[in-house]
C-alpha cells in the first residue's frame, strides 16, 4: 500500500489543461497542415504530383492538396526543388464537409469543422457515446484514438466516451479504408446504433482509402457506405488533431476558420 502511494506521488498529475490552457507542445518536426506558395512553382514540373503516393496533389488550373488523401509524408514537398509546398505545425485539420479538406494554392483561410446543429448539440453536446469500428487500416489510427482515454488527455472530462455496444452509442467513429471483409459488419453496426446518430471518419484510410486507395479489397473509406459528419485527416492524425475535431463538433472550440498557418514552423 505504501509503495502504491509513493508511486502515485512519484508519477504526479499529468492531465493536459487543453483546451482551457495551451495545447500540449508538438514536436518541431511534426507535419501538419500544408501551405502552397505557387509563386515559387516556376515551371509546373509536376514532380510533386508524381511523388505523391495517393494522388492527393493535383495541378490543373490551380495546385491543390486533398488532406483527405494526404499521408503527411512530405514526399511532395521533398520532390519540389523550389520549396513551393511546406508542411506546417498546424494541427487543427478537421472538417464537416469533404470539399473543405482540399487546400488550394495561396489559400488564406481554411474552413474548419463547425459545431453540430442546435438539435444534435442539445442531444450530444454534454455526453457523446461513440462505438469505434476498425475497418482495415494499420491500427495506428485506433491507437491514437485510444490515447485520448489515457490520463494525459482524459477524454471523459468532455463527456465523450467509447462504449462497448452500438446499442449504447450516439454514433460511430470509423478507422480504416473499410475493407470488403468489414463492409457487412460496419453496416450492421451502423444499423444497430439508435438514431439520431453521427459518423466520424478518422484518418486518410477512413476518409479516402489512404495508402490503399483504389484497392479492390477496400471501399475507399466510410463515405461509400455511410453519411459522414466529421472528417479528421492524418495518417494517423495526432491525438491533438482528433481531440480538436471532436471538440469543434461539440461546439467547445468555436473559431470556425483560422488564417492559413504560419509556414516553416
Amino acid at each position: 500500500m505504501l509503495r502504491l502511494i509513493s508511486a502515485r506521488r512519484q508519477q504526479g498529475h499529468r492531465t493536459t489543461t487543453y483546451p482551457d490552457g495551451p495545447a500540449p507542445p508538438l514536436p518541431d518536426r511534426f507535419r501538419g497542415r500544408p501551405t502552397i506558395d505557387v509563386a515559387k512553382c516556376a515551371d509546373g514540373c509536376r514532380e510533386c504530383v508524381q511523388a505523391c503516393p495517393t494522388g492527393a496533389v493535383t495541378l490543373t488550373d490551380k495546385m491543390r492538396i486533398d488532406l483527405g488523401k494526404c499521408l503527411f509524408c512530405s514526399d511532395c514537398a521533398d520532390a519540389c526543388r523550389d520549396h513551393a509546398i511546406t508542411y506546417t505545425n498546424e494541427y487543427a485539420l478537421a472538417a464537416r464537409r469533404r470539399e473543405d479538406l482540399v487546400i488550394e494554392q495561396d489559400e488564406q483561410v481554411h474552413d474548419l469543422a463547425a459545431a453540430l446543429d442546435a438539435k444534435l448539440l442539445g442531444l450530444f453536446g454534454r455526453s457523446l457515446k461513440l462505438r469505434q469500428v476498425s475497418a482495415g487500416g494499420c491500427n495506428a489510427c485506433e491507437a491514437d484514438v485510444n490515447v485520448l482515454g489515457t490520463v494525459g488527455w482524459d477524454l471523459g472530462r468532455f463527456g465523450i466516451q467509447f462504449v462497448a455496444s452500438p446499442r449504447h452509442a450516439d454514433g460511430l467513429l470509423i478507422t480504416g479504408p473499410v475493407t470488403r471483409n468489414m463492409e457487412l459488419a460496419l453496416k450492421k453496426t451502423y444499423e444497430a446504433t439508435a438514431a439520431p446518430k453521427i459518423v466520424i471518419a478518422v484518418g486518410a484510410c477512413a476518409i479516402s482509402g489512404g495508402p490503399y486507395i483504389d484497392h479492390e479489397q477496400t471501399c475507399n473509406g466510410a463515405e461509400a457506405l455511410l453519411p459522414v459528419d466529421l472528417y479528421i485527416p492524418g495518417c494517423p492524425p495526432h491525438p491533438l488533431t482528433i481531440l480538436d475535431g471532436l471538440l469543434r463538433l461539440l461546439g467547445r472550440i468555436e473559431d470556425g476558420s483560422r488564417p492559413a498557418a504560419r509556414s516553416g514552423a
Partner: protein
Amino acid sequence: MSLESAQTTAFTNGRSIELGAIPTLEFDGFEDAILDAVALGQRVAALFAAPSARPGGALLYVVLADDRENRLGVTRTKIDGDSFPSLTPQCPQVHMFEREIAEQFGSSPTGHPWLKPVRYHRSWTGRDAWQRPAHEAILAGVTDFYRVGGDEVHEVAVGPVHAGVIEPGHFRFQCHGEQVFHLEIALGYQHRGVEQAMAGGPHARSIHYAETVAGDTTIAHATAYCQIVEALARCQKTARAQTLRGVALELERLANHVGDLGALAGDVGFLPTASYCGRIRGDFLNMTALLCGSRFGRGMVRPGGVVFDVDDARVAELLRRLDAAERDTAVAVNLLWDTPSVMARFEDIGPLPRQVAMDLGMVGPAARASGLARDVRHDQPSGIFRFAHIPVSTYDAGDVFARAYIRWLEIQQSTAFIRDQLSAIPAGEVRVPVGPVAPNKLVVALNEGWRGEVCHVAITDAEGRFGRYKIVDPSFHNWTGLAYALRNQQISDFPVCNKSFNLSYCGHDL
C-alpha cells in the same frame, strides 16, 4: 550443423542472391530439405508460392533460418497441378503458410488437417482451393468451424466488432462451463491487398505499404523493406544511419512493451500501472516524434538510410526524456510484481509449453517467454545489431507472467541500448543515394520487431521489378500460439491471455 547442402543455397540476412543459383528440386527433395532442416532445429521463416513462367504453374519457395549458424537457406520446387502434398502433418509450423498458398494460388496441400481460408479473398490465379463458385461472394469468417459436441458443451462467438477500440477478428470458443476446450480464430477482416500491391514495385507507394503493414511496427517493417531495396541496389548505408534505425526500432519496442504492461494491468483491474504505463507509452511515442515528427515513426526510415538526423541538442533532449521515462517505467512496472492480486492473475495462466512453441514456430517475446532463445537481433543480425549486441532475454514458464516479465527485461535492455548508441553516434551522412534495383534476384530481410521476427522476401523479375513480394508479420506465426494457450483455461482469462500476446490483426491480414 550448417545448412550447406546441394538442396539449399546458403546466404545471410539482407544479402541478395541470383535466382539462377537457387536449385529447383523435385517435390520429394524439397520436402526432405525442409524436414531435415527443422529436425536440426532450424525454422521456417517463410514458405510461399510465386508465379512461374509456365501459365497456371507456380514455384514454392522456402526460407529456412539456421539460427545457430546465423545463416539462411533457400530452395524451391515447382507445383504444376492444383495440389501438392501437405507437410503440415510432419511439420506443424508450416500450417498457416500452406493455407495461405491454397488461398492465394488455388493449390491445395493434400492431407492438411485444417485447410481453411486465411484472409477470405478470391485467389490470384482464378483457381479456387475450395471450389467456391465465382459468382458467390466470399464472406469473411464464414467457414467450417471446429465444434465440440455433447450436452453440456456450449459455443461462444465473439467479433469481428469487439467491445474495445481494437481491430476486428472472430473468436469461437468451445466451452464446458467456464472451461475452454478449444479456441478457433478466424481473421482476414483487415485484408487490404498489401502483398499484391507490392508486386510491380518499387513504386511511390511501396514504402508507405511497408510503414502501414502494422502501424505499431512501422520502423521494423519499413526497415525490412529498405534492407530489401538496399540489397538489390548494392547500397552501403552509413554507420550513422544504421545507429539511428536501431534507436528508432528500440523506441518502437519500448512504447509497445510499456503499453502492453499497462494493458495487462488493466485487464486484471490493477489501475495504477494501467494508467501510468498508458501515459509513459506516450512519452516513448513522443520521443519517436522528436526524431521524425511522427509518433509512429512515419517518414523516418527510407532506402539509403534515414531522413532525419540528430544534433547534439536533440540527442541531449532524447537522453533527458529517456532517463525520466526509465524512472517512471520502473516504478510503474515493479508495482506489478509486488502485488499478489496481480501475480495471482498472471502466474500459471495461458501456458504455452516450450515444445509446442517450437512446433508452432513461435517468434518474438512469446517464444522467448516459453524458453526459446530466438531473437533476430542476435541470431540473424543486420545493421547496427552486427556491432552492438543486445542479450536475449528468456524465461521458461510460458504463462502470462512470463510474457509480461520478458517485456520488462527487454524494456531494460532496450533502454540501455538506446542510451549507449545515442552517447556515441558515428559521424557521417544519414542517407546515401540508392541506384536501380537489380533484376533476377532474391533477397530476404529479417528484423526483430517488438512482436518478433518481421520477414520480407523479394524476388525481382527480368526488368528489376518485384515479381513477388512476401511479407511475414510475426503475428502470422503466433496467433495459433494464443489459440493453444487458451486450452483448458477459464474463458474469463481470455482478455489477459490475448493481451499477453498482443498480436496484430492487420499485420496478419495484410
